């Protein structure tokens, strides 16, 4: 088989993923996980949260630490393995259910209205645009009426000078991350518009880190009473 030396590099990607993303976000990814968890659990104690494309489990564990009942799904078994090996943040917290499942297979496993919140960090930037559209539609149907959608991901800054500055800053980090993990991330484009097209309402985009990262929050239609509780 073609180069096992090459495959040896690939196989340890998952173990090194956290290090790579930590480097790329310059140590700030943990604060995003906590922010998503705060938003996902704002409506109810013991909310049912889905971490979509959970990877090594950052968001899922942050949600569990806030008392949520969490399911983390990811198609990458090696990433899940890393997530499973992490300790539950709080002895009283319910353990996260880790499932090897692609975001596109959500409909096979969960009936409609299974979750109060769907959160996702750095997963959409790994999906093609047609995949994003499909996943958003299915996610909407798996949320309860008024349920929350929370997506954190990398974006390209809008003002041109910032865009150039961002590209110059990002390149060396992206190269280093690629050399360490053989993975990289690609900024998502037009995410709020795509979320609206998928039928979500109350779409709000929050930009962080010099306009280069966003947290988009939205709600599944219906459940007007719950929507008033937005922070």
């Amino acid at each position: 088989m073609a180069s096992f030396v090459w495959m040896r590099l690939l196989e340890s990607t998952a173990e090194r993923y956290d290090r790579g993303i930590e480097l790329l976000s310059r140590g700030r990814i943990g604060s995003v996980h906590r922010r998503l968890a705060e938003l996902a659990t704002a409506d109810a104690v013991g909310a049912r949260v889905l971490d979509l494309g959970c990877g090594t489990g950052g968001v899922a564990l942050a949600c569990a630490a806030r008392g949520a009942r969490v399911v983390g799904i990811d198609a990458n078994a090696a990433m899940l393995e890393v997530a499973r090996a992490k300790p539950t943040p709080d002895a009283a917290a319910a353990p996260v259910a880790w499932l090897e499942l692609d975001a596109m297979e959500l409909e096979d496993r969960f009936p409609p209205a299974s979750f109060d919140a769907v959160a996702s960090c750095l997963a959409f930037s790994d999906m093609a645009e047609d995949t994003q559209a499909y996943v958003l539609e299915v996610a909407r149907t798996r949320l309860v009426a008024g349920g929350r959608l929370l997506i954190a991901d990398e974006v390209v800054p809008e003002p041109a000078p910032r865009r150039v500055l961002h590209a110059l800053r990002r390149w060396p980090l992206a190269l280093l991350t690629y050399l360490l993990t053989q993975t990289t991330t690609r900024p998502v484009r037009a995410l709020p518009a795509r979320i609206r097209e998928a039928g979500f309402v109350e779409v709000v985009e929050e930009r962080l880190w010099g306009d280069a990262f966003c947290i988009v929050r939205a709600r599944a239609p219906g459940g007007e009473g719950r929507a008033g509780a937005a922070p």
Partner: protein
Amino acid sequence: MSALAVLGGLRDTLLRMLPHRAPTGLRPIGRPGADAAVLVTGNYALTVRRLQRALAGRDVWLLVADSRGINVWCAAGGGHFTHHDVIAAVRAARLSERVEGRELVLPQLSATGVERRRIEEATGFRVRWGPAQADDLGAFLDRGRRVVARERAVRFPLRARLEMALIWGWPAALLSAAVAAGLGGWRTGAAVAVAVLASVTGLYAAVPRLPLRGWRRWPLFALFGVGGIGLGTLALAALGGIEGRSWAVLAVAALVADAALAVDFEGTTPWFVSSFAAAGHARIELEPERCSGAAECVQVCPRGVLAMDGGRRQVTITDPDACIRCAACIVQCPQDALRFRFDDGSVVEADTIRRTRLNLLGRRSVEVDGLRGPGA
């Protein structure tokens, strides 16, 4: 072919050891109708380019699934291309609305990580294994989407071997030449490049004829290294740079580059087991009482290790020495009748192999109590 396509092909070939993503999604080749064949592949740019060339003049759908920009075989072996990705591609393309047929043709080499039955359950599409090589796709389609036995074997013809020599030779030549140039001047660097490229090309050309695996590869590599140094010496003389120091740098640099390649020469070929493969010392084992004669293993084995015994309606292992431990047969067996057995007597069952993938074997034992591959 346009100059741009030629340059793109050259870039993808020279950098083929690195992931290079092509766009995913359903793309038409020719003018496919709703009943045309749907061929699935990964989004490795070089593969997509070559498939489009191999299928020129035909009317088929190409469904490009996300293999993280890695070729199908390596990606499937490493867990980077699985049935999840194929299911995702089918759904994202809304395939069931765009084609009338309910059949997907999967590349045979993806069988090491893509589980056929999981795709059929999730999508309602029937999965058929295509040939191991893209070159055979035309004949496969002409035959009514049927693979003949010889098309299941992965080939390594001279053209592919020379391409592999180039892929491994140029970075090795460039690196060793740069070091040699620093130590002995540009003429020495150029001579080292000649020596390395010549010995690497000779080695790949000789793959079918010489025992270039196991401990026996080392003297053969030394022999080819000396041959390369001979050609490098001629180059050095032609450039007018021959003297004691530059020749010594040439000899050492060329031998070091050859030795680096020798470490896992087997792993750069599709015929031998890598020196680094965790399952390298395992052997394939069949439990005859579980075998139902479905023969899926025979359909996906790229080395002709297994054969159907028609009389007993069961599979038999006919050529175990040819096995490259790709585990495709184990992953696809509907009865879990195949497994790996290691020298110490321990076994790794199908369920474990499906979860850990070939090249993760022995590393990820957290979820598998009591079953640890060697090196865990």
